[in-house]
């Protein structure tokens, strides 16, 4: 199996707080890798270091054999690493369809293209792509709605659609089901399973154990900025160290 993303010796401190300490993680192609851990364990910090929102104090993040540290967020996006945000970072003033067309345009137009005299109405291919993904997400009925006026759950799904429409090599999902009702969560799990069948590599940060054990091929456990265990779901389930640190000794 080839390694898509390789995180090596990443350290990050905020003031006196050691947020990440000597993180080493390899993500295999086509796999869904879950990162779990209690609040404040450094999960989001790790994701932010991957997509250029934060710069680690030391270490490297290699994507496809290329170091991503110091690259701009838009360059990392075009390298093929796309993040889906935990709190919906959508374009609230645009329509749902436009929200998905924007990332599709990014994929086609690159970081900058001056197409001020082309007609948006003539972008049938881009529009069809966006509509297709929105159908998948069950958002077809909302296509012409203002994105800002949707429910939180719908916004989360829109957020996911915006990531998927770019067909990234690696999708980073930050708690994709947080704040969703149970049936919405199950729907999202089904959807992510289908994506997995298409061979998209994913990193998922998640609190919900149901989601993690339904989707993950591998799980890494973060606690206090360190990876305390890494392995298949079964290995993690049986790991006494994990149960101690994260699950508080409860049976899984």
């Amino acid at each position, binding site marked *: 199996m080839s390694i898509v993303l390789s995180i090596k010796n990443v350290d990050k401190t905020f003031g006196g707080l050691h947020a990440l300490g000597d993180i080493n993680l390899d993500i295999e192609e086509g796999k869904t890798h879950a990162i779990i851990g209690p609040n404040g364990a450094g999960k989001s910090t790790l994701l932010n270091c991957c997509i250029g929102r934060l710069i680690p104090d030391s270490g490297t993040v290699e994507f496809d054999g290329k170091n991503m540290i110091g690259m701009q967020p838009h360059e990392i996006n075009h390298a093929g690493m796309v993040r889906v945000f935990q709190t919906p970072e959508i374009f609230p003033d645009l329509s749902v369809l436009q929200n998905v067309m*924007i990332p599709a345009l990014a994929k086609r137009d690159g970081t900058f293209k001056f197409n001020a005299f082309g007609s948006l109405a003539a972008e049938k291919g881009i529009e069809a792509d966006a509509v297709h993904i929105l159908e998948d997400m069950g958002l077809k009925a909302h296509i012409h709605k203002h994105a800002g006026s949707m429910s939180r759950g719908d916004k989360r799904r829109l957020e996911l659609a915006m990531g998927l429409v*770019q067909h990234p090599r690696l999708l980073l999902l930050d708690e994709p089901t947080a704040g969703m009702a149970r049936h919405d969560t199950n729907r999202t799990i089904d959807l992510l399973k289908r994506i997995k069948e298409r061979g998209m590599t994913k990193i998922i940060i998640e609190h919900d154990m149901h989601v993690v054990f339904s989707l993950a091929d591998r799980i890494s456990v973060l606690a206090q900025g360190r990876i305390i265990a890494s392995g298949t779901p079964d290995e993690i389930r049986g790991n006494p160290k994990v149960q101690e640190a994260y699950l508080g000794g409860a049976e899984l």
Partner: protein
Amino acid sequence: MIVPSIRNDWVIMAIFTAVVLTAPLWLTPVGAGYPDLLQKFAIFGIFAIGFNILFGLTGYLSFGHAVFLGVGSYTAVWSFKLLTMNVLPAVIFATLLAGVFAVVIGYVSLRRSGIYFSILTLAFAQMSYNMAYSVLTPITNGETGLQLTMNDPRILDGPAGQGLPSTTLFGLDMSGYAGFYFCAVMLIIAFFISLRIFRSPFGLKLLAIKSNQTRMKYTGFNTRPYLLTAFVISGMYAGLAGSLMAITDPLAGAERMQWTASGEVVLMTILGGTGTLLGPLFGAGIIKYFENIFSAMNDGRLHEIFSFLPDWLENIVVAITGEFVGDGWHLTLGLLFMIVVIFLPGGVVEGIRRANGFLRRLVQSSGTNTATLAAEKE
């Protein structure tokens, strides 16, 4: 439908062209059907449309767009002095040079956003204004303003005849209605370009930057060049407007760059409706129209208007309203602006939309009323 919404851009352009070209006819009844004022509408319309491409689409509020207006005017007058009285080269050079200035000012100012961007542009504008007044006097002729003289070379026109020449378009004198129609054609072109930008993928990306710039970066867009392009386009619009001012009256002064001029275009855009296609044009028209009416009024005219009142009351009313006309017309403008911003945050265009919705409901309810009446009769 009372006001049908039009989807086809070519229909919009056809109607727009017809409305602009027939403006002298339909603006005469309201006392605005003369070339000087019509030309002002067109010029400030172009200025505001261009400003709206930056402010309306990206949300970046520039407080220094008058710089480009000034650059446009100076360039046009220099073109008249050095090259030819033909207006076409003047317009082209002015637009291009304003674009160059916009690249420099935009490049620096766009390193910040929000209020800091506004202040940076304001600082640039005031700096340019003061430089035009002082150190750049050889280029700008300082306080007097840049004017045509008898010793100008005008290398393409050959030796000058009697008196100062006037601006032309290949021999056609640019005074009166010819001048207006030249500006009107420029306005139509400017509006067309703005329409295309609004309807383009580029325009959508600008709107997305306004909506959530951070997200744009993580979506794979380098937002800085997008913003700079929008800034330069709107700067070029201002340069074009500035050059058209010089066509009407071949004279350029530093006061054209002052912050009040920058503020005026902000008022026009907000008053008309930020981010809408036609709003800025309405705003420009309304402000210039009222400026024309109110600033020309004086106490004598007010006494005439209020002569139906008893003398003592007439004097009081005139004393109060007198503060709002003539030089004090900015008080009226301020009031108008406050009323619009408080009650119609979307500007005049939102007002039209609301009125349209209201009329539609009225027609519908009266329709159902007659229907129930008819049903009762049976």
